[in-house]
């Protein structure tokens, strides 16, 4: 079974973002770029599924100018088997990405597409859902995992503890119970994540939603987007970096994939959010009420 993972090259998460003086966008010159953190998590999940024997190949896809190849190489260094680079210098919005992915799926025919839930530069949270819609595939978004409590034995300081593949799928009653529970730390006794059932061609995903955890079961092929607490991505080790140099990267252009990059969106202005003002100290309740009435206008 093949897994396709889409990764995006974005401004590094730890860099302080500055808006360009002409307000047309964000400064990207000489700024450290790296892989989107959610995409790292997606790739890590795909690699774990492959390592548990349920998948045969992980293909990493990236779209953008030639600098994206750095990010793709990082993905290959983490362990992806092949890379695909869709070369495009124009801005790619989620719908374009989704269309390109759909056409790539027709070429590569993976059974599972895993993406990060959103990119940290645009925070759209749209691509995964759009891909599922275009392909008419089921989707399990915001796939998450509960972190084990700190005094849980066996999970101290392991860079990656393999997720429990075997215990869960059979015991459905337990899962529905979990789905009903509120999302709380430390009540879960084992790691839950994306669970694949090969014979039944299903995947079970625990989704982190606003009111707790929702468990869904999807028939393959399916689309999954990953949330922050799903796993901790591995480091790129030197032997893997060496191997990555020889892994093949296929190149496409949007034209070859019959996707027209026509921008329906125009970014009018990019501004910084207003700076937080210092708080105002009030000396009495009456003053507070008066301020709430007249200045904040909330009562």
């Amino acid at each position, binding site marked *: 079974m093949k897994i396709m993972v889409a990764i995006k090259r974005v401004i590094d998460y730890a860099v302080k973002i500055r808006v360009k003086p002409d307000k047309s966008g964000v400064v990207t010159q000489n700024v450290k770029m790296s892989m989107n953190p959610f995409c790292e998590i997606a790739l890590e999940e795909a690699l774990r599924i492959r390592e548990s024997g349920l998948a045969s190949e992980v293909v990493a896809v990236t779209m953008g100018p030639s600098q994206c190849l750095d990010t793709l190489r*990082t993905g290959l260094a983490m362990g992806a088997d092949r890379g695909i680079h869709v070369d495009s210098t124009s801005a790619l919005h989620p719908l374009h990405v989704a269309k390109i992915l759909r056409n790539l799926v027709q070429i590569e025919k993976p059974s599972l597409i895993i993406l990060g839930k959103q990119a940290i530069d645009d925070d759209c949270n749209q691509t995964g859902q759009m891909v599922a819609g275009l392909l008419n595939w089921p989707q399990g978004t915001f796939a998450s995992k509960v972190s084990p409590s700190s005094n849980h034995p066996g999970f101290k*300081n*392991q860079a990656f503890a393999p997720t429990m593949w075997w215990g869960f799928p059979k015991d459905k009653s337990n899962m529905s119970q979990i789905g009903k529970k509120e999302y709380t730390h430390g009540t879960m006794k084992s790691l839950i994540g994306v669970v694949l059932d090969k014979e039944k061609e299903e995947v079970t995903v625990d989704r982190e939603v606003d009111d707790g955890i929702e468990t869904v079961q999807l028939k393959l092929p399916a689309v999954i987007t990953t949330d922050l607490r799903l796993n901790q991505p591995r*480091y790129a080790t030197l032997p893997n*970096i060496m191997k990555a140099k020889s892994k093949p990267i296929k190149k496409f252009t949007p034209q070859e994939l019959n996707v027209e990059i026509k921008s329906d969106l125009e970014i009018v202005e990019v501004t910084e959010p207003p700076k937080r003002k210092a708080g105002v100290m009030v000396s009495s309740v009456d003053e507070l009420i008066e301020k709430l009435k007249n200045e904040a206008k909330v009562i």
Partner: protein
Amino acid sequence: MVNRNCRATLRLVTLINRQGHPHPPLSSSPSGHISHSYIILPFSIAFVFLTVLCFYSGTGIDACWKQLQRNNVHGEHKIVSFFSPLASSLKTRQWGVNIQSRCYGSASVLVQRNPKFSKLNDEDVRYFEGILGAKNVIQDDEKLITANTDWMRKYKGSSKLLLQPRTTDQVSEILKYCNFRCLAVVPQGGNTGLVGGSVPVFDEVVVSLSAMSKIISFDKVSGILVCEAGCILENIISFLDNEGFIMPLDLGAKGSCQIGGNVSTNAGGLRLLRYGSLHGNVLGIEAVLADGTVLDMLKTLRKDNTGYDLKHLFIGSEGSLGIVTKKLLQEARRKLGEILSAFEFLDSNAMNLVLNHLEGARNPLPTSLHNFYVLIETTGSDESSDKQKLEAFLLGSMENELISDGALAQDINQASSFWLLREGIPEALMRAGAVYKYDLSIPVEKMYNLVEEMRSRLGNDANVVGYGHLGDGNLHLNVSTPQYDDKILSQIEPFVYEWTSKHHGSISAEHGLGLMKANKIFYSKSPETVKVMTSIKKLLDPNHILNPYKVLPCSSIS
């Protein structure tokens, strides 16, 4: 204060120009009277320069002033430029008149030979021949002319004797004798100085270091060079080129200038922009003081924080504090050196401590346990090319089986988590219980031997952890026990200090001496050096009120 200096110097200028009776210029503008040309120097530098000079040759200048007072310009005299900080007292002594005048850079004054210096006689020459052998005692006129004249041919002395010692002991003997006989001495290297500092003014004995031109040793691992003061800079540079290293000092005069002179004058040169001044690059000096004492401050260690760093006094003292006979220099490595910004190591005990006690610490190489971990950081302006360099270096090292495994941080977050592993060790140690902390500078090859010896000494009683700045040869040896225990302390000290001293290390690479090692300085510094330190302490703090009981041994202070 500075203004008063100006006034004093202007007064002197007019003194020189007038042939007849000197009287103070009453008009304000000095330009009409002066015919000498001036060199405008920044005042702050000039003032410091003079303070140093005055401190060490105070009596000389005092005498000069007295001569001028009498307007007696007999005998030999030279036109010399200098300022006078004694001007404030001099003003009231001499003129008692307030003069407003503009300040200029420097002035030329006549210098009179100080009569307290003895004159050379045959007995002295014979004594020197006895120490050095007749070959190295030169009285030949031609050779003396070169030694007496500076490179710009602006200053010419009239020395009658040129000595060429070959060893530090000979220099020490010479100076001891000259001190006893009160013979003035001029240390000379390549004689390429541009301010007349390397040639005699009158008949001082010239001690030339040119014969001491051996490169004593070069450590390729740490890039530390030990050489004698008479080595010509160009020879050193070509020697290092062969080894693949760069000398941090380079000047136009490299064909003739000697490293002893460079260090004594704190030469700047062409590469200062990148490598910094000699204060940063000279790790140690062996110098001979005026009375013949040999101060051995030669430590082949990148870091040494034991007591006052006396070598800096000699760097830039221009031969007025002591004759530098040997020095240690740090060279820059060519391969990864230019982008390398950190090179740390930790052993497996340290790694386990951090992983167990610190939250959020992640083992980057979990698949196998390794004995040592090294953290390398590079900093540069071009990320992709630096990354390529680092990857090439790491992959090459893997192929050569220098490293068994590694992980490369792909973004800033991963880099911070790598640093947490190294920077979190002290905190993890604190959480593990009591800690005995030692900070030692040891030659890189022998660094870990100490950790292993400590382990065998302490056995199961304690967890001996070694980590540190491998690139600087600095080991942080930490012994972790559940509680503080005197028994364990006696096992550790003084063994640690003795071991370090035996291997010519420093008992404090960066932490300093403080209270903990106040009486232990002798493990790393010679008694003569400590004596000079205590005399400086007495000079600057006669009542010892500043931070008592620390740094220097109590026995020497009292």
